[in-house]
């Protein structure tokens, strides 16, 4: 066997997802007319199969494809959670897409290709593979956002996302090329080794780090690179918004781990300062502007900016516990957004988008169970115990205080309190306001409501028993530092 194919079995989950994406595409082409559910059912099978394949690889580690793909605990754990996130999106999606006449197989094919992009990013050990994974993800996302082409807002959101995303990719690529010029290698491990000889005040290095961090901040949605978020989240079909807030965030987090921690941990002081600035701006912008929003999708977009601020606290800490708590926060954020947007999906019906906060008025009288689930979701986002959102915030605060940034933690706590206002406002509207007369009936959707119940109750259960998930995150960070 050729040397470059040594250990190619490490890439089996990626290969499986790629093959199955093509199978879904063809199956939908030939069978889609008669069996309308063939694409989503096959997608679910693909995700379950990938989970099994990844599960068998737990505990192994090493590189393959001439060092371009790395398998370590972080790869495994991040991939497993990405499958979970896409699975939820698929389970939520059916009725919403049908009502809008875009229940087509291509959506699921693009979701699978986007997932493949996330997997390539997560397992990237080389600037080349990381960047290509990012582009694969981004290209699928642009198409997904604009998928409802008869909707003007969706098309506008798609175009905006495409232009700004291309700019961000350019920034990231520019940073990568400077790093390549400085170290003479594309491989992340070799970059880390070469940077030992470079002083942290080296101008080229500073330039490279600034560009790379700006690119990552855009993909994560950290302020001041968040301009695209509200418009794209609001304009995209809600199923796509749900996806945007899930697996791609794990991919963006992988960019931090792979580029800045694996590659640039020796330069921690240099990029730490940039991250402190990003954290502060994100916390303030996200939590303050969200107060003024009347549209729930927009509010959740700004809340995303705030959450990115909180998870960056763990990155700023720069310790193993810090990265593990940031990873924990990322996963919790993904679960919370899936539930939050899932609730909007559940309340919509043909021709009616339940994305205004006013649409939630009096939900407790119309559907008490949904109101209770939404209560858990909002409490978790605000960080109220005993939900998992509280534990996630606690973990990042602990990490950042242990690293000596007490003032940062104090600002974080203050803004978390301010942020609690707009989450609790939704709760107040649901329980204490009378329903609007035109709000209409809630359409029955057993699959999505069962998924949402499990998703929301998981937020409560994980809050009471956070230990295993936290242990899993610490396991993922093994070998990263």
């Amino acid at each position: 066997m050729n040397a470059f194919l040594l250990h190619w079995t490490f890439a089996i989950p990626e290969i499986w997802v790629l093959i199955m994406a093509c199978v879904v595409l063809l199956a939908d082409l030939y069978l889609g007319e008669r069996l309308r559910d063939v694409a989503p059912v096959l997608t679910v099978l693909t995700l379950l199969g990938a989970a099994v394949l990844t599960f068998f690889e737990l505990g192994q580690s090493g590189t393959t494809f001439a060092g371009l793909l790395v398998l370590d605990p972080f790869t495994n754990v991040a991939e497993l959670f990405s499958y979970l996130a896409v699975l939820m999106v698929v389970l939520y999606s059916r009725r919403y897409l049908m009502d809008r006449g875009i229940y087509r197989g291509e959506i699921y094919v693009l979701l699978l290709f986007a997932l493949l992009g996330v997997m390539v990013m997560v397992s990237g050990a080389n600037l080349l593979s990381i960047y290509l994974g990012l582009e694969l993800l981004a290209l699928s996302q642009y198409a997904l956002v604009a998928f409802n082409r008869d909707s003007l807002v969706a098309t506008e959101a798609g175009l905006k996302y495409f232009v700004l995303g291309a700019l961000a990719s350019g920034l990231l690529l520019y940073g990568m090329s400077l790093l390549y010029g400085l170290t003479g290698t594309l491989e992340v491990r070799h970059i880390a080794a070469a940077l030992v000889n470079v002083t942290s005040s080296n101008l080229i290095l500073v330039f490279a780090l600034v560009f790379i961090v700006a690119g990552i901040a855009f993909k994560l949605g950290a302020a001041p690179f968040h301009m695209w978020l509200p418009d794209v989240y609001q304009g995209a079909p809600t199923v796509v918004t749900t996806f945007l807030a899930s697996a791609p965030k794990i991919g963006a987090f992988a960019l931090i781990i792979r580029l800045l921690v694996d590659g640039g941990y020796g330069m921690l002081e240099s990029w730490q300062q940039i991250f402190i600035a990003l954290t502060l701006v994100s916390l303030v912008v996200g939590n303050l502007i969200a107060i003024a929003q009347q549209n729930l999708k927009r509010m959740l977009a700004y809340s995303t900016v705030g959450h990115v601020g909180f998870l960056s606290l763990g990155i700023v800490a720069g310790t193993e516990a810090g990265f593990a708590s940031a990873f924990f926060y990322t996963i919790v954020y993904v679960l919370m957004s899936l539930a939050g947007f899932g609730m909007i999906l559940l309340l919509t019906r043909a021709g009616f988008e339940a994305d205004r906060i006013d649409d939630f008025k009096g939900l407790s009288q119309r559907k008490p169970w949904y109101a209770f689930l939404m209560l858990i979701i909002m409490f978790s986002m605000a960080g109220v115990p005993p939900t998992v959102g509280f534990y996630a915030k606690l973990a990042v605060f602990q990490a950042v205080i242990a690293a000596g940034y007490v003032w940062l933690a104090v600002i974080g706590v203050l803004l978390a309190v301010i942020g609690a206002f707009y989450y609790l406002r939704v709760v107040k509207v649901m329980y204490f306001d009378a329903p609007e007369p035109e709000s209409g009936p809630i359409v029955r959707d057993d699959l999505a409501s069962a998924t949402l119940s499990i998703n929301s109750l998981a937020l409560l259960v994980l809050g009471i028993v956070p230990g295993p998930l936290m242990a899993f995150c610490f396991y993922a960070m093994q070998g990263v530092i």
Partner: protein
Amino acid sequence: MIITTILFYLFSAILLGSATAVITARNPVYASLFLVLAFFNAAALFILLGAEFLGLILILVYVGAVMVLFLFVVMMLDINLTRLKEGFLSYLPLGLAIAILGVLELAVVFWTSPLGHIPAPGPIPANADNTRALGVLLYTHYLYPFEIAAVILLVAIIAAIALTLRRRQGTKTQSIDAQMAVRAKDRISLVNLRRPEQ
């Protein structure tokens, strides 16, 4: 040696000139043709550097395929250039300022800390075959990114079709199966027109 230096400056000068003409030309067809010229000169520079494969592929792919497509699009779209260029002069000072700032910053960086880690390329061996060398590298060491790039192109195709293909109701299209299966007697029926004998 001197000849190659002269050629380098010649090609570079034409490259820069035609690149400028791309954005200043009034007619979009001229702009695309200037872009073709720019590609040609870039290809010549590649060949001067000894990378003949890259030079030829640039001409084949960009000039042969991409630019022809581009010209088609430009000719088919009715682009109103005067409207497109309306804001050009008012944005020019800001754009220039940003460009100059960027160039200055980069110049400072490159002057103060030279990119010294990369050794200068050695002389090209006598029977170097860079097509083969690129091919071997691309299909072994860089197999994985090569495959992902292919997937990205596949996604681009799927996305473009999914976003633009529209099945309209009531359009008249050929039904090839029916056309092939047709027989002469389906099309022509002979009618006896002779007036019956009275």
